């Protein structure tokens, strides 16, 4: 029996393709549970390097806590990016995505969202705990949490451009970092300043507005760049 199974083609819509891609991303994460656990663990471990490497005294720690948390989150997000397109590139799924009649933009967006849900969100959720361990001053918890919540997606979206550009390379890990880290500096600045300045009495709203602007900007533009970069990398 080699007949085609179904002879009435019902074409898919952009929405179904978006949903299918998002679902696939989540299933993949579920299969490779370590994809979810690892960014999270990495964040924990890097955060613990600070008391070990710098100083275990609560007073000194509390001075560096916000920065240390943001740096750890930045690095965790960066490392997690590596998985975003690589497996798909290697097994040819990415080609199939490019050859789909649906716009690549939305599929890239779906992959980005799925990826942040499994790698960025857990980091954000666990951050108050680490903040406590690093003696972050009371009262900064909310600021830290909210800025991380809005900042980590920006990091993911920016990182996605870097991975898309380097997905065809042998040794990605580091070149990705070299491309992406400088671009992430504004997020780091906004995030840490929000924490330190609100400690000094500044209002949170302004910082959140900046974060929001960064998030909106990258959310609309970054997938475009990622999509273009993927086309380049695959051909």
């Amino acid at each position, binding site marked *: 029996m080699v007949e085609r199974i179904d002879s009435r083609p019902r074409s898919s819509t952009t929405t179904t393709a978006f949903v299918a891609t998002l679902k696939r991303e989540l299933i993949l994460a579920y299969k490779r549970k370590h994809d979810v656990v690892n960014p999270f663990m990495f964040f924990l471990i890097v955060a613990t390097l600070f008391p070990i490497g710098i100083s275990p005294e609560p007073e000194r720690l509390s001075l560096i806590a916000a920065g240390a948390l943001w740096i750890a989150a930045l690095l965790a997000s960066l490392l997690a990016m590596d998985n975003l397109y690589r497996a798909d590139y290697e097994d040819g799924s990415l080609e199939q995505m490019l050859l789909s009649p649906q716009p690549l933009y939305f599929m890239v967006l779906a992959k980005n969202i799925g990826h942040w849900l499994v790698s960025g969100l857990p980091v954000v959720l666990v951050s108050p705990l680490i903040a406590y361990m690093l003696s972050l001053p009371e009262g900064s918890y909310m600021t830290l949490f909210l800025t991380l919540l809005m900042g980590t997606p920006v990091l993911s979206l920016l990182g996605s451009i870097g991975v898309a550009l380097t997905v065809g390379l042998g*040794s990605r890990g580091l*070149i990705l970092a*070299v*491309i992406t880290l400088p*671009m992430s500096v504004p997020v780091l*600045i906004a995030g840490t*300043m929000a924490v330190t300045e609100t400690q000094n009495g500044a209002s949170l709203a302004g910082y959140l507005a900046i974060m929001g602007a960064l998030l909106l900007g990258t959310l609309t533009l970054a997938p475009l*760049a990622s999509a273009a970069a993927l086309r*380049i990398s695959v051909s």
Partner: protein
Amino acid sequence: MWTWFHQLGSPKWFYELTGRWLPWLVAAMSLLLLVGIVWALLFVPPDYQQGNTIRIMYIHVPFASISLAFFPLMAIAGTVTLVWKIKLADMIAKTAAPLGAWFTALALASGSIWGSDIWGTWWIWDGRLTSMLLQLFLLIGVISLRSALEDTDAAAKACAVLSIVGCINVFVIKYSVDWWNTLHQPASPITTSGEGPNGPEIWVPLVIMIFAIYLFFAVALILSTRNEILQRERRAQWVQDLVRTA
């Protein structure tokens, strides 16, 4: 109409045109450099605060200001590469990246040597310095990406995308780093140094040096781009003819 545009972007056209211009450019550059450097070293009066270190300014300021032009340049070239697939644009972008890194590095080095006396340290995490350093990192990222991607076409397009994204980022970074720094620190000596006596005996040689370094930038870019053209177009008839007669 696009045929005209493409012709304008043809490597052959560029090679011949710059071949005609180069002698003039080099002559003008040499003259201005000579005048500028001699003036800066011999005739500029020492600053009442900084003494003879003021002479560093005549290197530092031209390099610092021109190095800000590289990302916009690369982004424009990148856009042309992506939209019109004009090879020449990518050749320029390719040579611009290392040149930009050199410019940035020299601005950083001269600034930090200048500052070593005024600040008493070679390096501070001042807003402008930090954003300059980050620009250097971004440029090295572009170079690194170019060297990592083996396929010329793919590298051209990937670097074009990265340059465009990077160009936006350079502005965001600059803005955010200034913001970050000004809240933490008093204004840096860079901005206060403009307060001294500012007569023409100070700024005329500076303007000359700025022009000279701009010409230098053009000459260096053209020289490397011509090499790139010779290599990439090596199979074109006109290059082969040129090689035979050379």
